[in-house]
Protein backbone atom coordinates (compact mmCIF):
# COMPACT_ATOMS: atom_id res chain seq x y z
CA UNK A 1 0.00 0.00 0.00
CA UNK A 2 2.23 2.77 -1.22
CA UNK A 3 0.47 6.06 -0.83
CA UNK A 4 2.88 8.70 0.38
CA UNK A 5 4.60 10.51 -2.46
CA UNK A 6 8.03 11.81 -1.58
CA UNK A 7 9.98 14.64 -3.10
CA UNK A 8 13.74 14.36 -3.34
CA UNK A 9 14.10 16.77 -0.45
CA UNK A 10 11.90 14.68 1.81
CA UNK A 11 13.30 11.34 0.71
CA UNK A 12 16.81 12.28 1.84
CA UNK A 13 17.14 12.79 5.58
CA UNK A 14 19.06 15.70 7.14
CA UNK A 15 22.24 13.64 7.73
CA UNK A 16 22.60 13.39 3.96
CA UNK A 17 22.92 17.16 3.59
CA UNK A 18 26.19 17.81 1.84
CA UNK A 19 26.28 14.22 0.56
CA UNK A 20 23.13 13.60 -1.46
CA UNK A 21 21.51 17.00 -1.28
CA UNK A 22 22.77 20.50 -0.68
CA UNK A 23 21.69 23.32 1.58
CA UNK A 24 18.51 25.35 1.31
CA UNK A 25 20.18 28.54 2.55
CA UNK A 26 23.27 29.89 0.85
CA UNK A 27 25.05 32.78 2.50
CA UNK A 28 28.51 33.73 3.66
CA UNK A 29 27.47 34.06 7.29
CA UNK A 30 27.58 30.29 7.63
CA UNK A 31 31.27 30.20 6.70
CA UNK A 32 34.03 30.01 9.28
CA UNK A 33 34.92 33.17 11.22
CA UNK A 34 31.94 35.07 9.84
CA UNK A 35 29.37 36.90 11.89
CA UNK A 36 25.60 37.25 12.11
CA UNK A 37 24.69 33.70 11.20
CA UNK A 38 21.88 33.75 13.76
CA UNK A 39 20.48 36.92 12.23
CA UNK A 40 20.53 35.34 8.77
CA UNK A 41 18.81 32.21 10.10
CA UNK A 42 16.05 34.28 11.69
CA UNK A 43 15.53 36.21 8.46
CA UNK A 44 15.33 32.93 6.56
CA UNK A 45 12.62 31.79 8.93
CA UNK A 46 10.59 34.93 8.20
CA UNK A 47 11.09 34.55 4.46
CA UNK A 48 9.95 30.92 4.47
CA UNK A 49 6.87 31.72 6.54
CA UNK A 50 6.01 34.61 4.26
CA UNK A 51 6.44 32.72 1.00
CA UNK A 52 4.56 29.62 2.06
CA UNK A 53 1.80 31.80 3.48
CA UNK A 54 1.53 34.03 0.44
CA UNK A 55 1.65 31.48 -2.35
CA UNK A 56 -1.38 29.35 -1.55
CA UNK A 57 -4.31 27.84 -3.38
CA UNK A 58 -3.90 27.35 -7.07
CA UNK A 59 -0.47 28.97 -7.00
CA UNK A 60 0.81 26.81 -4.21
CA UNK A 61 4.48 26.48 -3.33
CA UNK A 62 5.09 22.79 -3.92
CA UNK A 63 8.76 22.72 -2.98
CA UNK A 64 11.01 23.97 -0.23
CA UNK A 65 12.09 27.58 -0.42
CA UNK A 66 15.70 28.15 -1.41
CA UNK A 67 17.24 31.37 -0.12
CA UNK A 68 20.45 32.58 -1.69
CA UNK A 69 22.23 35.75 -0.68
CA UNK A 70 24.49 37.39 -3.18
CA UNK A 71 26.07 40.74 -2.30
CA UNK A 72 23.32 42.72 -0.56
CA UNK A 73 20.47 40.98 -2.39
CA UNK A 74 18.32 38.07 -1.33
CA UNK A 75 17.30 35.66 -4.07
CA UNK A 76 14.38 33.41 -3.24
CA UNK A 77 13.80 30.42 -5.50
CA UNK A 78 10.90 28.02 -5.26
CA UNK A 79 8.66 25.90 -7.43
CA UNK A 80 5.07 26.98 -7.95
CA UNK A 81 2.28 24.78 -9.18
CA UNK A 82 1.94 25.14 -12.89
CA UNK A 83 -1.32 26.80 -13.88
CA UNK A 84 -1.45 28.64 -17.14
CA UNK A 85 -4.52 30.72 -16.64
CA UNK A 86 -3.40 32.50 -13.48
CA UNK A 87 -0.57 34.52 -14.97
CA UNK A 88 -1.87 37.82 -13.65
CA UNK A 89 -2.09 36.53 -10.11
CA UNK A 90 1.37 35.07 -10.53
CA UNK A 91 2.84 38.42 -11.51
CA UNK A 92 1.01 40.17 -8.72
CA UNK A 93 2.17 37.77 -6.05
CA UNK A 94 5.76 37.95 -7.31
CA UNK A 95 5.83 41.73 -7.09
CA UNK A 96 4.00 41.70 -3.77
CA UNK A 97 6.41 39.22 -2.23
CA UNK A 98 9.48 41.10 -3.46
CA UNK A 99 8.18 44.45 -2.28
CA UNK A 100 7.04 43.32 1.14
CA UNK A 101 10.15 41.28 1.87
CA UNK A 102 12.48 44.07 0.79
CA UNK A 103 10.68 46.40 3.20
CA UNK A 104 10.99 43.85 6.00
CA UNK A 105 14.59 42.86 5.31
CA UNK A 106 15.75 46.32 4.19
CA UNK A 107 17.54 44.95 1.15
CA UNK A 108 16.62 44.08 -2.46
CA UNK A 109 14.71 40.82 -2.74
CA UNK A 110 14.23 38.88 -5.97
CA UNK A 111 11.84 35.99 -6.42
CA UNK A 112 12.92 33.39 -8.95
CA UNK A 113 9.82 31.35 -9.58
CA UNK A 114 10.09 28.03 -11.34
CA UNK A 115 6.88 26.38 -12.51
CA UNK A 116 6.30 22.67 -12.40
CA UNK A 117 3.61 20.22 -11.41
CA UNK A 118 3.37 18.03 -8.36
CA UNK A 119 4.02 14.98 -10.51
CA UNK A 120 7.35 16.36 -11.63
CA UNK A 121 8.57 16.54 -8.05
CA UNK A 122 7.72 12.97 -7.13
CA UNK A 123 10.90 11.08 -6.41
CA UNK A 124 9.58 7.98 -4.73
CA UNK A 125 6.39 6.53 -3.29
CA UNK A 126 6.38 4.85 0.10
Amino acid at each position, binding site marked *: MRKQRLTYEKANTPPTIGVRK*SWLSWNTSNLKDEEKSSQRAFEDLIIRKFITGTWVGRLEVISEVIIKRRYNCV*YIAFIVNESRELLNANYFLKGYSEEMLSIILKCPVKCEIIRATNDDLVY*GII
Partner: protein
Amino acid sequence: MAAGAKCLLLTRFTHFNKNKCIFQISRCLQAIPTEPVEYEPKIDKGHYSIQRQFELQKNTVQYTFMIGLSPNGFREYDLYQHGRRFKETKFIFGRFKRSKMNEPPPAIPRCTQMPTDQHWPNVWPTAKTFNWSQVPFNVRQGFTVYKAVPKKKGNLELMKIPNFLHLTPPHIKQHCEALKDLCTEWPQELQTDEDCKKYFPVEVVTSDYLFSGPSIRDERARICTVKFDLDDLELDYHARDKFLRLVGDRYDKETNTVTFVTDRCPLRKQNYDYAIYLMTAVYFESWTTEPWESEKEESDWETYHWDLSSSRKSVVSIVQQMKQVSSGPEGDTTPMEEEELLQTPEIQEYKRCVTVLHNQGENADTLTDYKNAVLQLYKVPTSSNTPIVIS
Protein backbone atom coordinates in the same frame (compact mmCIF):
# COMPACT_ATOMS: atom_id res chain seq x y z
CA MET B 1 -18.27 18.87 -35.00
CA ALA B 2 -15.23 19.32 -37.10
CA ALA B 3 -12.44 16.80 -37.08
CA GLY B 4 -9.95 19.48 -36.19
CA ALA B 5 -11.95 20.76 -33.27
CA LYS B 6 -9.27 19.92 -30.73
CA CYS B 7 -6.43 20.30 -33.11
CA LEU B 8 -5.60 23.81 -32.17
CA LEU B 9 -3.65 23.44 -29.00
CA LEU B 10 -1.76 26.62 -28.59
CA THR B 11 -1.34 29.98 -30.12
CA ARG B 12 1.74 32.06 -29.57
CA PHE B 13 1.64 35.80 -29.61
CA THR B 14 4.79 36.92 -31.29
CA HIS B 15 3.76 40.53 -31.51
CA PHE B 16 0.88 42.43 -30.11
CA ASN B 17 -0.27 45.99 -29.74
CA LYS B 18 -3.47 47.88 -30.25
CA ASN B 19 -3.04 48.16 -33.99
CA LYS B 20 -1.46 44.95 -35.05
CA CYS B 21 -1.52 41.40 -33.90
CA ILE B 22 0.59 38.52 -35.14
CA PHE B 23 -0.19 34.91 -34.28
CA GLN B 24 1.79 31.84 -34.78
CA ILE B 25 0.08 28.49 -34.56
CA SER B 26 2.72 26.45 -32.87
CA ARG B 27 1.19 23.05 -32.41
CA CYS B 28 -1.52 21.41 -34.40
CA LEU B 29 -2.36 17.90 -35.34
CA GLN B 30 -3.25 18.83 -38.86
CA ALA B 31 -1.66 21.06 -41.36
CA ILE B 32 -2.55 24.65 -40.85
CA PRO B 33 -0.39 27.63 -41.61
CA THR B 34 2.36 28.05 -39.02
CA GLU B 35 3.84 31.24 -40.36
CA PRO B 36 3.11 34.42 -38.44
CA VAL B 37 0.09 36.10 -39.96
CA GLU B 38 -0.85 39.71 -39.55
CA TYR B 39 -4.39 40.63 -38.71
CA GLU B 40 -6.25 43.86 -38.47
CA PRO B 41 -8.14 43.77 -35.18
CA LYS B 42 -11.56 45.28 -34.90
CA ILE B 43 -12.93 46.78 -31.75
CA ASP B 44 -15.86 45.00 -30.18
CA LYS B 45 -17.11 46.00 -26.73
CA GLY B 46 -13.76 47.35 -25.69
CA HIS B 47 -11.94 44.22 -26.83
CA TYR B 48 -9.95 43.69 -29.95
CA SER B 49 -11.15 40.66 -31.79
CA ILE B 50 -9.88 38.89 -34.87
CA GLN B 51 -11.60 36.30 -36.98
CA ARG B 52 -9.65 33.84 -38.94
CA GLN B 53 -10.72 30.84 -40.95
CA PHE B 54 -8.55 27.80 -41.21
CA GLU B 55 -9.25 25.43 -44.03
CA LEU B 56 -8.39 21.95 -42.99
CA GLN B 57 -8.42 18.86 -45.11
CA LYS B 58 -12.08 17.95 -44.99
CA ASN B 59 -13.81 20.41 -42.79
CA THR B 60 -13.73 24.09 -42.36
CA VAL B 61 -13.30 25.20 -38.80
CA GLN B 62 -13.74 28.76 -37.81
CA TYR B 63 -11.87 30.11 -34.84
CA THR B 64 -12.31 33.47 -33.26
CA PHE B 65 -9.47 34.94 -31.25
CA MET B 66 -10.56 37.39 -28.64
CA ILE B 67 -7.74 39.65 -27.62
CA GLY B 68 -8.19 42.16 -24.92
CA LEU B 69 -6.21 44.61 -22.93
CA SER B 70 -7.48 44.72 -19.39
CA PRO B 71 -7.39 48.07 -17.59
CA ASN B 72 -4.28 47.07 -15.65
CA GLY B 73 -2.45 46.39 -18.89
CA PHE B 74 -2.30 42.62 -18.69
CA ARG B 75 -2.95 40.57 -21.76
CA GLU B 76 -5.98 38.34 -21.93
CA TYR B 77 -7.10 36.10 -24.64
CA ASP B 78 -9.88 33.67 -25.26
CA LEU B 79 -10.48 31.19 -28.01
CA TYR B 80 -13.83 30.63 -29.55
CA GLN B 81 -14.78 27.85 -31.86
CA HIS B 82 -18.12 27.78 -33.62
CA GLY B 83 -19.35 30.30 -31.19
CA ARG B 84 -18.54 28.04 -28.24
CA ARG B 85 -15.97 29.02 -25.71
CA PHE B 86 -12.88 26.88 -25.87
CA LYS B 87 -11.58 28.13 -22.58
CA GLU B 88 -13.20 30.19 -19.94
CA THR B 89 -11.72 31.94 -16.98
CA LYS B 90 -13.54 34.34 -14.77
CA PHE B 91 -12.52 36.23 -11.72
CA ILE B 92 -15.56 36.36 -9.42
CA PHE B 93 -15.49 37.51 -5.81
CA GLY B 94 -11.85 36.76 -5.32
CA ARG B 95 -12.03 33.18 -6.52
CA PHE B 96 -11.06 31.75 -9.82
CA LYS B 97 -13.75 29.74 -11.52
CA ARG B 98 -12.91 27.62 -14.44
CA SER B 99 -14.82 25.14 -16.53
CA LYS B 100 -13.19 21.80 -16.03
CA MET B 101 -14.46 20.43 -19.31
CA ASN B 102 -11.98 22.35 -21.36
CA GLU B 103 -8.67 21.99 -19.59
CA PRO B 104 -6.14 24.39 -21.05
CA PRO B 105 -3.33 22.76 -22.94
CA PRO B 106 0.04 22.52 -21.16
CA ALA B 107 2.60 25.18 -21.83
CA ILE B 108 5.34 24.37 -24.26
CA PRO B 109 8.72 24.92 -22.58
CA ARG B 110 10.85 27.57 -24.19
CA CYS B 111 13.88 25.32 -24.40
CA THR B 112 12.22 23.13 -27.05
CA GLN B 113 11.87 26.06 -29.42
CA MET B 114 15.35 27.53 -29.10
CA PRO B 115 17.45 27.61 -32.24
CA THR B 116 20.84 25.93 -32.03
CA ASP B 117 22.73 29.03 -33.18
CA GLN B 118 21.20 31.43 -30.68
CA HIS B 119 23.31 33.92 -28.72
CA TRP B 120 23.37 32.32 -25.28
CA PRO B 121 24.15 35.50 -23.26
CA ASN B 122 20.81 36.89 -24.42
CA VAL B 123 19.02 33.93 -22.87
CA TRP B 124 21.02 33.85 -19.64
CA PRO B 125 22.51 37.33 -19.16
CA THR B 126 23.27 37.29 -15.42
CA ALA B 127 23.54 34.87 -12.53
CA LYS B 128 20.19 33.30 -11.74
CA THR B 129 18.67 30.11 -10.47
CA PHE B 130 18.52 27.15 -12.79
CA ASN B 131 15.26 27.15 -14.75
CA TRP B 132 14.42 23.89 -16.46
CA SER B 133 12.36 25.55 -19.17
CA GLN B 134 15.20 27.83 -20.29
CA VAL B 135 18.05 25.34 -20.53
CA PRO B 136 18.07 23.57 -23.89
CA PHE B 137 19.92 20.43 -22.84
CA ASN B 138 19.17 17.49 -20.63
CA VAL B 139 20.77 17.50 -17.22
CA ARG B 140 20.15 15.42 -14.13
CA GLN B 141 21.24 15.65 -10.54
CA GLY B 142 20.48 13.56 -7.51
CA PHE B 143 21.13 10.30 -5.74
CA THR B 144 19.17 7.30 -6.97
CA VAL B 145 17.33 5.45 -4.19
CA TYR B 146 13.92 4.53 -5.54
CA LYS B 147 15.14 3.63 -9.02
CA ALA B 148 14.18 7.07 -10.24
CA VAL B 149 16.79 9.43 -11.61
CA PRO B 150 15.87 13.02 -10.72
CA LYS B 151 15.29 14.73 -14.04
CA LYS B 152 15.67 18.28 -15.18
CA LYS B 153 12.12 19.48 -14.66
CA GLY B 154 11.32 20.48 -11.11
CA ASN B 155 14.70 19.39 -9.78
CA LEU B 156 15.36 21.31 -6.59
CA GLU B 157 19.00 20.22 -6.41
CA LEU B 158 19.75 21.91 -9.71
CA MET B 159 18.15 25.07 -8.37
CA LYS B 160 20.15 25.04 -5.16
CA ILE B 161 23.64 24.89 -6.55
CA PRO B 162 25.29 27.96 -8.06
CA ASN B 163 25.49 27.48 -11.80
CA PHE B 164 27.90 28.98 -14.28
CA LEU B 165 25.49 29.36 -17.18
CA HIS B 166 26.11 33.11 -16.99
CA LEU B 167 29.88 32.69 -17.36
CA THR B 168 30.23 30.83 -20.64
CA PRO B 169 32.99 31.81 -23.11
CA PRO B 170 30.63 34.11 -25.07
CA HIS B 171 29.77 35.87 -21.81
CA ILE B 172 33.41 36.35 -20.87
CA LYS B 173 34.18 37.65 -24.33
CA GLN B 174 31.38 40.17 -24.01
CA HIS B 175 32.55 41.21 -20.54
CA CYS B 176 36.11 41.73 -21.79
CA GLU B 177 34.89 43.81 -24.71
CA ALA B 178 32.92 46.01 -22.35
CA LEU B 179 35.80 46.35 -19.88
CA LYS B 180 38.43 47.11 -22.50
CA ASP B 181 37.49 50.79 -22.62
CA LEU B 182 38.09 51.13 -18.90
CA CYS B 183 41.58 49.59 -18.94
CA THR B 184 44.83 51.59 -19.14
CA GLU B 185 48.21 50.48 -20.34
CA TRP B 186 50.79 49.14 -17.92
CA PRO B 187 53.48 51.77 -17.21
CA GLN B 188 56.62 51.29 -19.30
CA GLU B 189 58.91 52.03 -16.34
CA LEU B 190 57.59 49.10 -14.30
CA GLN B 191 58.76 46.08 -16.23
CA THR B 192 60.18 43.96 -13.42
CA ASP B 193 59.53 43.46 -9.73
CA GLU B 194 62.74 45.33 -8.92
CA ASP B 195 61.40 48.38 -10.74
CA CYS B 196 58.18 48.24 -8.75
CA LYS B 197 60.16 47.96 -5.55
CA LYS B 198 62.37 50.87 -6.53
CA TYR B 199 59.55 53.30 -7.38
CA PHE B 200 57.11 52.07 -4.71
CA PRO B 201 59.26 51.16 -1.71
CA VAL B 202 56.43 51.19 0.83
CA GLU B 203 53.87 48.40 0.60
CA VAL B 204 50.45 49.05 2.16
CA VAL B 205 48.14 46.06 2.61
CA THR B 206 44.46 46.49 3.47
CA SER B 207 41.56 44.08 3.07
CA ASP B 208 38.01 44.68 1.88
CA TYR B 209 35.41 42.23 3.10
CA LEU B 210 32.52 41.39 0.81
CA PHE B 211 29.79 39.24 2.26
CA SER B 212 26.14 38.56 1.65
CA GLY B 213 24.20 40.88 3.86
CA PRO B 214 22.55 44.27 3.86
CA SER B 215 25.50 45.96 5.61
CA ILE B 216 28.82 46.71 3.97
CA ARG B 217 30.59 47.37 7.28
CA ASP B 218 33.18 44.97 8.59
CA GLU B 219 35.45 45.89 11.45
CA ARG B 220 38.28 43.77 10.05
CA ALA B 221 38.60 46.21 7.15
CA ARG B 222 40.19 48.81 9.48
CA ILE B 223 43.46 46.89 9.84
CA CYS B 224 46.33 48.40 7.89
CA THR B 225 49.72 46.83 7.27
CA VAL B 226 52.71 48.90 6.14
CA LYS B 227 55.86 47.11 4.96
CA PHE B 228 59.16 48.52 3.80
CA ASP B 229 62.73 47.41 3.27
CA LEU B 230 65.21 48.50 5.93
CA ASP B 231 67.85 49.24 3.27
CA ASP B 232 65.62 51.93 1.79
CA LEU B 233 66.13 54.08 4.88
CA GLU B 234 69.27 56.15 5.34
CA LEU B 235 70.75 54.82 8.56
CA ASP B 236 74.27 54.75 9.97
CA TYR B 237 75.52 52.06 12.34
CA HIS B 238 74.14 53.66 15.50
CA ALA B 239 70.83 54.65 13.90
CA ARG B 240 70.29 51.19 12.43
CA ASP B 241 71.03 49.55 15.76
CA LYS B 242 68.66 51.90 17.57
CA PHE B 243 65.99 51.44 14.85
CA LEU B 244 66.07 47.67 15.25
CA ARG B 245 65.89 47.98 19.04
CA LEU B 246 62.87 50.28 18.71
CA VAL B 247 60.87 48.16 16.23
CA GLY B 248 61.64 44.88 18.00
CA ASP B 249 59.62 41.96 16.59
CA ARG B 250 58.39 44.01 13.64
CA TYR B 251 61.73 43.49 11.89
CA ASP B 252 62.09 40.29 9.88
CA LYS B 253 65.77 39.38 9.64
CA GLU B 254 65.36 36.95 6.75
CA THR B 255 63.60 39.31 4.38
CA ASN B 256 65.14 42.47 5.90
CA THR B 257 61.71 44.12 6.08
CA VAL B 258 59.93 46.07 8.78
CA THR B 259 56.17 45.54 9.15
CA PHE B 260 53.81 47.83 11.04
CA VAL B 261 50.32 46.45 11.65
CA THR B 262 47.92 49.05 13.04
CA ASP B 263 44.38 48.29 14.18
CA ARG B 264 43.87 50.52 17.21
CA CYS B 265 41.85 53.22 15.41
CA PRO B 266 38.27 52.66 14.21
CA LEU B 267 38.87 53.69 10.59
CA ARG B 268 41.30 52.45 7.99
CA LYS B 269 42.48 55.94 7.10
CA GLN B 270 43.34 56.65 10.72
CA ASN B 271 45.23 53.38 11.00
CA TYR B 272 47.17 54.13 7.81
CA ASP B 273 48.07 57.59 9.06
CA TYR B 274 49.18 56.11 12.36
CA ALA B 275 51.40 53.54 10.63
CA ILE B 276 53.05 56.25 8.53
CA TYR B 277 53.49 58.35 11.67
CA LEU B 278 55.11 55.40 13.42
CA MET B 279 57.51 54.93 10.54
CA THR B 280 58.50 58.58 10.57
CA ALA B 281 58.81 58.81 14.34
CA VAL B 282 60.96 55.71 14.66
CA TYR B 283 63.24 56.88 11.87
CA PHE B 284 63.97 60.27 13.40
CA GLU B 285 64.17 58.87 16.89
CA SER B 286 66.82 56.41 15.77
CA TRP B 287 69.03 59.25 14.52
CA THR B 288 69.05 61.08 17.87
CA THR B 289 71.66 60.09 20.44
CA GLU B 290 70.58 60.49 24.03
CA PRO B 291 73.15 61.29 26.78
CA TRP B 292 72.52 58.00 28.55
CA GLU B 293 73.43 56.00 25.46
CA SER B 294 77.13 56.45 26.27
CA GLU B 295 76.59 54.35 29.40
CA LYS B 296 76.10 51.23 27.31
CA GLU B 297 77.89 48.30 28.87
CA GLU B 298 79.32 45.16 27.38
CA SER B 299 76.13 43.20 28.19
CA ASP B 300 74.11 45.72 26.13
CA TRP B 301 76.15 45.24 22.98
CA GLU B 302 74.17 44.14 19.96
CA THR B 303 77.38 42.53 18.53
CA TYR B 304 80.71 41.67 20.14
CA HIS B 305 83.51 44.23 19.71
CA TRP B 306 86.81 42.67 20.65
CA ASP B 307 88.71 45.94 20.58
CA LEU B 308 86.56 47.33 23.39
CA SER B 309 86.29 44.14 25.38
CA SER B 310 88.05 42.92 28.45
CA SER B 311 89.36 40.02 26.39
CA ARG B 312 91.74 42.35 24.59
CA LYS B 313 93.20 43.68 27.87
CA SER B 314 93.77 40.25 29.30
CA VAL B 315 95.29 38.88 26.07
CA VAL B 316 97.65 41.82 25.79
CA SER B 317 98.76 41.49 29.41
CA ILE B 318 99.28 37.73 29.08
CA VAL B 319 101.33 38.06 25.90
CA GLN B 320 103.43 40.84 27.47
CA GLN B 321 104.08 38.71 30.54
CA MET B 322 105.12 35.84 28.28
CA LYS B 323 107.53 38.18 26.50
CA GLN B 324 108.88 39.49 29.80
CA VAL B 325 109.47 35.98 31.03
CA SER B 326 111.32 35.09 27.87
CA SER B 327 113.32 38.37 27.51
CA GLY B 328 113.99 39.41 31.16
CA PRO B 329 112.47 41.55 34.00
CA GLU B 330 113.70 44.94 32.78
CA GLY B 331 111.58 44.98 29.61
CA ASP B 332 108.73 47.50 29.78
CA THR B 333 105.96 47.73 27.21
CA THR B 334 104.98 50.97 25.54
CA PRO B 335 101.75 51.81 23.71
CA MET B 336 103.59 51.44 20.41
CA GLU B 337 104.55 47.96 21.33
CA GLU B 338 100.97 47.17 22.31
CA GLU B 339 99.79 48.28 18.87
CA GLU B 340 102.46 46.12 17.30
CA LEU B 341 101.43 43.18 19.43
CA LEU B 342 97.87 43.48 18.20
CA GLN B 343 99.00 43.29 14.60
CA THR B 344 100.64 39.91 15.05
CA PRO B 345 98.84 37.12 13.16
CA GLU B 346 98.27 35.08 16.33
CA ILE B 347 96.35 37.84 18.06
CA GLN B 348 94.47 38.73 14.85
CA GLU B 349 93.37 35.12 14.50
CA TYR B 350 92.41 35.01 18.20
CA LYS B 351 90.38 38.22 17.76
CA ARG B 352 88.52 36.79 14.78
CA CYS B 353 87.73 33.52 16.52
CA VAL B 354 86.47 35.18 19.74
CA THR B 355 84.28 37.58 17.76
CA VAL B 356 82.79 34.77 15.70
CA LEU B 357 82.27 32.69 18.84
CA HIS B 358 80.30 35.49 20.51
CA ASN B 359 78.30 36.56 17.46
CA GLN B 360 77.46 33.19 15.94
CA GLY B 361 77.25 31.07 19.06
CA GLU B 362 78.97 27.90 20.06
CA ASN B 363 79.18 25.04 17.61
CA ALA B 364 81.81 22.53 16.57
CA ASP B 365 83.46 24.79 13.99
CA THR B 366 83.70 27.92 16.09
CA LEU B 367 84.93 26.01 19.13
CA THR B 368 87.60 24.24 17.06
CA ASP B 369 88.77 27.52 15.59
CA TYR B 370 88.86 29.07 19.05
CA LYS B 371 90.87 26.20 20.46
CA ASN B 372 93.42 26.31 17.66
CA ALA B 373 93.74 30.10 18.02
CA VAL B 374 94.39 29.83 21.76
CA LEU B 375 96.93 27.04 21.31
CA GLN B 376 98.68 29.07 18.63
CA LEU B 377 98.66 32.18 20.80
CA TYR B 378 100.19 30.49 23.84
CA LYS B 379 102.57 28.47 21.70
CA VAL B 380 101.21 25.15 22.94
CA PRO B 381 101.80 22.24 20.59
CA THR B 382 98.52 21.40 18.84
CA SER B 383 96.96 17.99 19.17
CA SER B 384 94.71 16.20 16.75
CA ASN B 385 91.93 15.88 19.29
CA THR B 386 88.88 17.96 18.46
CA PRO B 387 86.55 19.20 21.19
CA ILE B 388 83.32 17.29 21.61
CA VAL B 389 80.18 19.37 21.93
CA ILE B 390 77.78 17.84 24.41
CA SER B 391 74.34 19.16 23.79
